[in-house]
């Protein structure tokens, strides 16, 4: 495969030059073991140092290098060029987020929503140190472990048509992380978290398109988390209607 080349069409947005974005085409050597991020690094090192994008770990852990690759939200560090070769590869910033420059999106909206769901263990009171650790069985761990694999890469927000149409939607990753703590046996904030999310902008905005789960690189299944939260919220509502005297 020596001498083979691949074409990358890369989204460029340079606000100091033009208010409108454009696509720039780069020809780079094709290597079978290169991922899209390797290609971008090649462009940055050898062809055009002005290209801006985020990346860090190169191994699917940090969640920084998410971009639209041929229209699909992907981690560019784990998307091989050979998946598309010899076709051209189109690289754009993640959909549904404002673009600051080239392939860099602004994530303020997601981070604000993430904090809103209180993604940490909430205790009504801490037990004294002499009480020892908060122990968990493997079964209790298994209840939330899947949701704890989220790396905040926001691919699910880029895949969600509801978030595109309704920007107030709290969104897949934030709700999956809320569910991660709701399912944790050490947490005591579940009911408050669930009631805060049981709103038109929260879980009820989701109509179960399911693309968040399809694109998730770590198998979190945010769509499942949202449906499970809907079920829990509906049961909570039913309990409050049927046995109002036991309300908390």
């Amino acid at each position: 495969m020596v001498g083979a080349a691949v074409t990358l069409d890369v989204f460029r947005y340079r606000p100091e030059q033009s208010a409108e974005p454009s696509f720039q085409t780069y020809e780079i050597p094709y290597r079978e073991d290169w991922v899209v991020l390797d290609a971008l690094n090649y462009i940055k090192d050898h062809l055009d140092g002005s290209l801006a994008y985020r990346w860090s770990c190169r191994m699917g852990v940090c969640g920084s290098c998410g971009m639209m690759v041929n229209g699909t939200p992907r981690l560019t560090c784990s998307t091989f060029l050979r998946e598309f070769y010899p076709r051209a590869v189109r690289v754009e910033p993640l959909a549904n987020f404002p673009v600051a420059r080239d392939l860099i999106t602004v994530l303020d909206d997601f981070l604000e929503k993430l904090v809103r769901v209180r993604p940490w263990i909430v205790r009504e009171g801490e037990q004294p140190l002499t009480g020892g650790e908060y122990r968990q069985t493997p079964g209790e761990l298994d209840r939330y472990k899947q949701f704890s694999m989220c790396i905040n890469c926001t691919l699910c927000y880029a895949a969600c048509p509801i978030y595109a149409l309704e920007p107030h939607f709290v969104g897949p990753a934030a709700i999956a992380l809320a569910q991660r703590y709701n399912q944790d046996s050490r947490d005591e904030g579940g009911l408050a978290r669930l009631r805060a999310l049981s709103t038109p902008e929260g879980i009820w905005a989701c109509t179960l398109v399911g693309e968040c789960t399809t694109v998730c690189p770590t198998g979190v299944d945010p769509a499942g988390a949202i449906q499970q939260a809907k079920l829990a919220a509906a049961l909570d509502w039913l309990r409050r209607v049927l046995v109002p005297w036991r309300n908390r």
Partner: protein
Amino acid sequence: MKLYRRPSEFAWWVTNRAYFLFVVRELTSVFIAGYGVVLLVLLQRLAAGPQTYAAYLRFLASPGMIFFHLVALAAALYHSVTWFRLAPQAMPVRLRGRRVPPPAIVAAGYAAWGAISLVVVWIVLRGPR
């Protein structure tokens, strides 16, 4: 910092196969609602007397109405199949601390559907007493 906001696409649901199938699933509700209206009108005509009821039955036998019923049946089947397929995602079941495999939950859904359908068939075929 001057941010660029991409314009939202009007025909977003044809840009991706999964979005398209999702919108089709949501649209099936229109036909199911239409079928509900037909049933309600049927009840109203039944209450109005045998002649009105017979006239309505003749209307239902017209090719257009038969076509509508076939489409509504296809819509109901598509909606049901996708519904059963999504059930394990929305309702993971645990027995003795272990996750029940998703295909078993789907199978249980179909089994319940079959059992309830059999009861309905029995009530209908039993006829008036």
